[in-house]
């Protein structure tokens, strides 16, 4: 049953409205214009007047264009054929592959029943010491990467996509620069990770409305794979663009704005996406890493602020490195006691010394006298930064822990580290004397 309407009552920004009967909230329609066809979604019903958000945007739509209601909400094809493919924000292929139309699933489904959740318990190894050693990523965790624009957050995501020990990577691009899109495509292709990756990529020049679909499509697909027993890692970049797109549309629709112009339901909207992260008893899991760029490095901006209250910690990217101080994985305690006995102690011990290094560095910059202890700390700090914090380092956790001990022993005597004697006896590297 398709109904076609050919009189558009109003066009404001990306939102058009038509008088139509029997329409359901959230239903899809197809709008045919002289520039081609676009999908649109019903976002408001007011008696007979139906407001639709046009995915391809409102530009060039004429009041005489045709609107055909499809009788179902937004869906996406789900099968193993998705693997290695690249789509846009509305699920249309961006690569040269065929359109997929079998086994359509609805997006934006209900939340997981908390009573069915299990306590997270598995670590996802990434080969990046700043993650594995200091803030372990845990299966089912939802974590943002807080970052200032200009930081290499997409490089970090691509690296995680290639190295993370999961079954499937779903990469959702929201408002990506075209160069960044190509970067992801090329990097994953060259790194051989494309075959286990599915990409839903919205670029900055695509219509803004399409970007709103990216997290939902990515997570709906992730959920189906997870229910089939797969360990899925969903990477989203950039969630600030997602929030900005919501803001743009809410304002065009003359909604009452909330904090700094963002819509009143910003928290709910972000939460309903991030909360899809889950570990399912007897099946697979969804882990979410999302980039949140912070306008002006301001963590109190509504997007990072609301995100921080939803997610289970954050990776704080600063100066091209994951900052040990602002970063936090709330779930790391669930897993880092099962890796190696020195993991927790080394993690705490190295960070405490690194904090002291920062103090010495400050003293040095102010021209104060450097004691021999300061000198040791300076040596340690530099070794720590180049050996551990460099994001190009790719080593397994055990190797990273060994490296930690080497860095310590190069700078300090065992008793200067503040670590327990029993660990020192077992792990302190024995140096050959020349």
């Amino acid at each position, binding site marked *: 049953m398709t109904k076609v309407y050919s009189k558009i009552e109003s066009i404001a920004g990306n939102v058009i409205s038509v008088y139509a009967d*029997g*329409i*359901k*909230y*959230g*239903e899809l329609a197809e709008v045919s214009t002289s520039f081609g066809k676009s999908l649109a979604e019903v976002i*408001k*019903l*007011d*008696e*007979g007047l139906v407001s639709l958000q046009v995915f391809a945007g409102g530009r060039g739509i004429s009041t005489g264009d045709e609107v055909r209601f499809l009788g179902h*909400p937004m869906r996406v094809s789900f099968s193993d054929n998705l693997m290695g493919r690249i789509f846009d924000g509305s699920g249309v292929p961006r690569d040269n592959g065929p359109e997929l139309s079998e086994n359509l699933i609805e997006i*934006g*489904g*209900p*939340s*997981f*029943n*908390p*009573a*069915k*959740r*299990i*306590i*997270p318990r598995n670590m996802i190894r990434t080969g990046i010491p700043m993650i594995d050693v200091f803030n372990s990523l845990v299966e*089912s*965790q*939802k974590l943002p990467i807080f970052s200032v624009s200009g930081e290499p957050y997409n490089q970090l995501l691509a690296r995680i996509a290639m190295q993370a020990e999961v079954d499937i990577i779903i990469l959702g691009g929201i408002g990506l620069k075209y160069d960044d899109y190509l970067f992801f495509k090329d990097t994953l292709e060259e790194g051989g990770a494309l075959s286990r990756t599915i990409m839903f990529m919205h670029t900055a020049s695509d219509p803004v409305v399409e970007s709103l679909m990216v997290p939902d499509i990515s997570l709906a697909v992730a959920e189906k794979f997870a*229910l089939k027993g797969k360990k899925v890692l969903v990477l989203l970049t950039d969630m600030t663009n997602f929030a900005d797109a919501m803001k743009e549309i809410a304002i065009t629709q003359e*909604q*009452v704005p*909330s*904090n700094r112009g963002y*819509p*009143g*339901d910003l*928290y*709910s909207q972000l*939460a*309903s996406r*991030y*909360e*899809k*992260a*889950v570990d*399912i008893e007897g099946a697979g899991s969804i882990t979410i890493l999302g980039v949140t760029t912070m306008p002006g490095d301001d*963590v*109190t901006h*509504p997007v990072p*602020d*609301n995100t*921080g*209250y*939803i*997610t*289970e*910690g954050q990776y704080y990217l600063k100066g091209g490195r994951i900052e040990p*101080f602002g970063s*936090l994985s709330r*779930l790391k305690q669930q897993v880092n006691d099962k890796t190696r006995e020195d993991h927790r102690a080394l993690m705490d011990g190295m960070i405490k010394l690194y904090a002291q290094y920062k103090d010495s560095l400050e003293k040095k910059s102010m021209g104060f006298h450097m004691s021999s202890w300061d000198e040791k700390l300076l040596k340690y700090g530099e070794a720590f930064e180049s050996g551990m914090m460099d994001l190009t380092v790719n080593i397994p956790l055990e190797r990273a822990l060994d490296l930690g001990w080497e860095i310590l022993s190069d700078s300090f005597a065992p008793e200067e580290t503040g670590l327990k004697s029993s660990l020192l006896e077992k792990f302190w590297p024995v140096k050959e004397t020349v």
Partner: protein
Amino acid sequence: MKNTGKVIGVNGNMVTVSVTGQVSMNEVAYILTGGKRLKCEVIRIQGDNVQVQVFEMTKGVGIGDEVEFTEDLLAVELGPGLLGQVFDGLQNPLPELAEEAGFFLERGIYLDALPRDKEWEFTPVANTGAQVSAGEVLGTVPEQNFVHKIMVPFNLLGTYTVKSIAEKGNYKITDKVVVLTDEKGNSHDVTLVFQWPVKRAIKCYSERLKPVEPLVTKMRLIDTFLPVAKGGTFCVPGPFGAGKTVLQQAMSKNAEVDIVIVAACGERAGEVVETLKEFPELLDPKTGRSLMERTIIICNTSSMPVASREASVYTAVTLAEYYRQMGLDVLLLADSTSRWAQAMREMSGRLEEIPGEEAFPAYLESSIAGFYERAGIVALKSGEKGSVTIGGTVSPAGGNFEEPVTQATLKVVGAFHGLSRERSDARKYPAIHPLDSWSKYTGSINPVQTGYAYDMLRRSYEIGSMMKVVGEEGTSTDDFITYLKGEFLDAVYYQQNSFDPVDASVTPERQSYLFGQIMEVLTAELDLDTKDEARSWFNKVRQTFLDYNGTQWESDEFKALDKEIGTLIADKKIGILHGSEKVMEK
């Protein structure tokens, strides 16, 4: 014949319904769509058009969908079987829902809050012919470790005569156990369960009293310096990552109350699940039984529909009031009230109301006040006392306490436990800032002594910040010792390791003993001539106290450390600081 209507507009989870006939504000209705019944609540009436907020996602709702009105306000079921349950904000039992609907929270499935087939052993208390009114006890049933009182339903106004009462025996909650007759001679059946509208406070008591008795949380900083009273209110604001949830979890485990109700309104499901899975395993030190048996969890995570989140705190406080009516002490912990306020803001925006400060609705303050005012200690009609204590966390944007939710909350609570980023970054837990926080309640330790300790800490902070400018060299040794005394108090008394099995919960007896020891150090005039000497002595003392805090109360190891502390102090103490003599008088 109940009222019906038709959907004429949909905007997010606000639906406009055209209706003829009588509709009440906050009445519950169901939208029939796609074979499902979606629960909603009337929130605005304009002539024949009624706006309802739907407690579910509204995808698929269309113009012309039928709406059934129920004539009932949003209500919860009150009766035996609530303890140990996990409900959503509308009192759906989540584990049963999972059995019914699987992994996901499918729309339109509503289950009975209380099991219908379970039998309870009813013992009559009232006699035939007795005159009774709302809240008075008719009989009892055992529930977990408590005597659950079957009371005259709170919605029966006036005086009633007990016409008949069932004999001792097993009954289901919907079985009729008592028949009452009113003044006009009409009969009213009473079962073990009745309904109460969540947004109205239960007031079937004879008098509301002043909260004076301390509620023991087993956290030193709170019990000694920032106490909470039974029937009082407190709030815990803090930026994300400062430890709000950990603090609440510790309180829900250790507080000395009969019943704990945890309301998650819009928090992370991952954190709620820890409580869900952990509580059944933990034992209540008081009863030796599973902690879950004295707990009710209202679980509305951040991704559940906003209207249901808005309802969740009311559901929680209504259940709390119900158990208070049985003469029990109930602690309600709401995490986080900011999410609840945000839910209000969201709904208000949809209603296109003129926004107040930071786009919160103009009635934000009165809603917050109305919620906290449902706390209290009351004298029941039987003469017994019961209390509801409410503690709410607040998650202010960017950790800024000037924002409307924190400010509105501060006006109505009796204690303020403000968390600081600075302390949590320095790994000083609990991260409650001792100087910024306050309490209007009285704790169990002599306030002259706690005041002395507090002043010393304040001086220590001042000296500490001065030292950052003039360096250690520019500070006198006396001042330096005061600084170290403050640091010592902070490290061994204010800070408490919630992961250490012993240190995690400290009884009032032990707190008082330890505080006495601390006062010995704080008031002592010490024979320490140089700063290096002072620092090294305080390091030693601090280390000993930390070990001591981790040892079992009155164990041999404890006694040995106690002795060691005595020696350490005696070694350097040459008298009492001038002006401290009075403080130490018993």
